[in-house]
């Protein structure tokens, strides 16, 4: 049996003999692999970002959001006796949902925090005590909003970690913070939470690090222009058993539609369903990508086959010499196939390096999140090697079946 080390050494030498030809035939594979690696990196980055956004909403959660209604839509809603999302909806859900769950209403208000050095308006979240558990928030100091605060309308607040630091002395426990016309005492500070900026969408994740939490019902009154439809902005439902999320979401929608006079003036977001959808979209994306990459690789493979056929024709006499000193057909096949595999693997490695570089530049210049995964590199290399095998096999078989005597006579 011919030694593999010797085979690859022979193949290297044969390829090195025609550096330019090898390089040019390799280019097809290089570009194909660049495309595969860069596109997979973009796809994987987008997928990861979407999944993280969805997961940060909570896999067990169901989010009901008040829709922004036009004046005409609000009129229609009023006619159907819908007041938008309300605390009555929360009570109804608590009573009617058949599975164990926690329900937390939330009202988001944009207001100026007067002590803040930054001019950005902060999102003030008026919540009940359940919100802490539903959103898995953790405190670094003090306490969260309690039932008593909501019941008695205590003017207390809990600050996000970043906001607390931004406020300096005014952001410590016990400090008093003015929001619009009201003064709130800081009773707690949240632990810092991982957050990544995302495009505004239904899935946009709040930056709790810059949030202010106050008891529901104590929120400063928004100005007339900012007044929104609905008593509350959101209802968060955390279902204890993950398996019941889908059925519970259906029940939530049914209950609320019934209570809103058959008007769906709210949006039900189920992160679990969104993850399934995102995964399906990613699968479709991967299939399209696979087709594009496949076509590119076929084109690259044709280039390699062409080079190998030229090489076989050029080295007919060498094949005859090798056969005359004892090379079997398999030895000849192995030699030429290994040449084409080396060619494509080398092209694959260059493509991976350039593709990863492309992904980095795309991420840097366009601000897209890209992710080069180990499996995408393995896939690219595997595909390159397979193309090498397939495109090298025909020329190798052709070489192996040369008549040794005729090959020796070849000039």
């Amino acid at each position, binding site marked *: *049996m*011919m*030694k593999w080390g*010797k085979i690859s050494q*022979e193949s290297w*030498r044969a390829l090195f*003999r025609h550096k330019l030809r090898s390089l040019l035939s390799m280019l097809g594979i290089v570009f194909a692999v660049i495309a595969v690696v860069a596109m997979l990196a973009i796809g994987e980055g987008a997928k990861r970002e979407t999944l993280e956004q969805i997961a940060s909403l909570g896999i067990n959660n169901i989010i009901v959001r008040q829709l922004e209604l036009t004046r005409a839509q609000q009129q229609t809603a009023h006619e159907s006796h819908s007041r938008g999302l309300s605390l009555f909806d929360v009570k109804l859900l608590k009573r009617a949902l058949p599975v164990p769950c926690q329900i937390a209403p939330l009202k988001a208000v944009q207001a100026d925090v007067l002590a803040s050095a930054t001019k950005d308006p902060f999102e003030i979240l008026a919540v009940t005590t359940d919100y802490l558990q539903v959103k898995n928030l953790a405190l670094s100091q003090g306490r969260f909003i309690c039932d008593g605060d909501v019941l008695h309308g205590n003017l207390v607040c809990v600050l996000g970690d970043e906001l607390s630091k931004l406020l300096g002395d005014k952001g410590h426990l016990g400090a008093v913070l003015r929001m619009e016309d009201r003064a709130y005492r800081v009773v707690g500070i949240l632990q810092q939470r991982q957050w990544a900026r995302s495009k505004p969408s239904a899935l946009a994740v709040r930056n709790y690090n810059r949030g202010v939490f106050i008891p529901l019902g104590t929120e400063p009154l928004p100005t007339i222009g900012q007044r929104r439809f609905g008593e509350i902005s959101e209802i968060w439902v955390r279902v204890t058993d993950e398996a019941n999320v889908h059925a519970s979401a259906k029940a939530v929608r049914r209950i609320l539609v019934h209570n809103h006079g058959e008007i769906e003036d709210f949006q039900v977001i189920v992160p679990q369903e969104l993850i399934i959808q995102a995964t399906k979209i990613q699968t479709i994306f991967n299939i399209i990508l696979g087709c594009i990459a496949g076509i590119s690789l076929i084109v690259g493979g044709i280039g390699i086959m062409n080079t190998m056929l030229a090489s076989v024709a050029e080295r007919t*006499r*060498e094949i*005859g*010499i*090798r*056969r*005359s*000193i*004892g*090379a*079997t*057909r*398999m*030895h000849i096949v192995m030699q030429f196939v290994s040449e084409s595999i080396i060619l494509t693997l080398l092209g694959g490695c260059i493509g991976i390096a350039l593709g990863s570089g492309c992904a980095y530049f795309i991420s840097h210049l366009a601000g897209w999140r890209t992710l080069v995964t180990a499996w995408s590199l393995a896939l690219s290399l595997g595909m390159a090697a397979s193309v090498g095998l397939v495109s090298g096999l025909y020329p190798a078989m052709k070489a192996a079946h040369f008549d*040794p*005597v005729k090959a*020796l006579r070849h000039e």
Partner: protein
Amino acid sequence: MNIAEAHKIRKVYQMGSERVEALRDLDISVRVGEFVGIMGPSGSGKSTLMHIFGCLERATQGRYLIGGQDVSLLSDRELSVIRANQIGFISQSFNLIAQYNVLENVAMPFLYRKERNHEAISRAEAAIERVGLAGRRNHRPSELSGGELQRVAIARALVIRPLLILADEPTGNLDSETSKSIISLFCELNERGATIVVVTHESAVASHCGRIIHILDGRIIGAET
């Protein structure tokens, strides 16, 4: 004891609609340690006979035995194994790989054998030394003279310690002085026990052989010792 035996060997080539009989019921045997010359004009079938002896071609009919083994029914792979282990082939055009140096050319047969790398190199070096090219082991074929090229080809044939050395017009591309040195190398190898069959149309070469077989139109027309 016979190293190679051909019984009623017939070789027919189909050239389009035409049938060409290159060998017709040939019987030849070569004994251990013999130096046999095969002579004949162009187209007489000498090279075809060498190719059959070297297991590069199969006879259309008849039996051919090498080392007592009938190779007529062996597979292509089995014939390759015989070529790798039992036959040293030398041709008029040297058949060396231009990109390899002398040592690599001589060690080439070991690519298809089981010997370890260091053993292959030491045997190749010994063979190079034996043909008088010890100082040229790192030279490429393009840097060697015709005689030296043929010596490299001989070293490559010797390196596997073959049962049979086949030389097809080994002096065909050499001047008379170089031819003499190559023939004397063959004689020396034969004196040391190598079995050699040389195809030639030069009587000066054939005169050194222990036995000369004359072929014409694929038939043996005479033999002399």
